[in-house]
């Protein structure tokens, strides 16, 4: 027999694993075997955000990863993480992250490239001096 907590966690894990699908509150509350209202209330109580806010956060986190580490187009990434249209993706991304996806990709790739080619820009000198034995 699952506890209340376990049932809400179960629904959160559905979001974690299926955020790229068009998940509705009905589906999520059904997966946890709660009424919509009860599920919404319990989810907010446990995670301090609504299921929809959490779903958006997961999509944005996944988009940030893909923008940094993949070569998919902005539109493709939006669809791949569950947004229904590129303009919705752009607007939501900017609202959550502070920049548009294109700018974010450019900035993070620059930072990543700099870190790879000039590790001294990210590794504190005291660590490098103590733990790096070949340079």
């Amino acid at each position, binding site marked *: 027999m699952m506890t209340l907590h376990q049932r809400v966690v179960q629904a959160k894990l559905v979001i974690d694993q299926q955020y790229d699908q068009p998940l509705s509150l009905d589906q999520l509350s059904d997966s946890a075997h709660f009424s919509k209202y009860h599920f919404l209330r319990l989810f907010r109580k446990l995670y301090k955000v609504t299921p929809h806010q959490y779903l958006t956060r997961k999509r944005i986190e996944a988009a940030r990863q893909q923008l940094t580490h993949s070569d998919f187009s902005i539109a493709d990434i939006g669809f791949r993480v569950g947004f229904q249209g590129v303009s919705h993706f752009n607007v939501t991304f900017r609202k959550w992250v502070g920049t548009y996806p294109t700018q974010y990709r450019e900035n993070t790739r620059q930072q990543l490239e700099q870190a790879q080619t000039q*590790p001294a820009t990210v*590794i504190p000198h005291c660590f490098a001096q*103590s*733990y790096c034995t070949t340079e």
Partner: protein
Amino acid sequence: MITKMSHAALYVLDQDEAKDFYANKLGFEVRNDVTMGDFRWLTVAPPEQPDLEITLMPIKPNHVLNDADVKQVRELVKKGAMGSGVFNTSNCQATYEELKAKGVEFISPPTERPYGIEATFKDNSGNWFSLTQRLSQ
């Protein structure tokens, strides 16, 4: 004056396995994974804490540790004598259930303390942490 802590170091037995644990079990972000010579700088952090990086440090001979030290530190890490820290959560019971379902080893279940509700768990090297829901949350 000191304004904040930006990096904290934690010895781990295997950096790849630790990266997998922190990213895929705890849901942390990998902030840096770069190498300088033979040193791999691997840092992770909770997604909601942008100004902290936890450095997952390899245990191998270097300017600080000799071969005997390495052996000793590895044993101490496995024993849980080296690392400890406190992670905050908005709900200890829910996070406990989730991490347990993902295979994280808990030392103690959620328990009421004077400062909130706390469970303790180990990472896959042996370092232990408190998972705390503060009273005010």
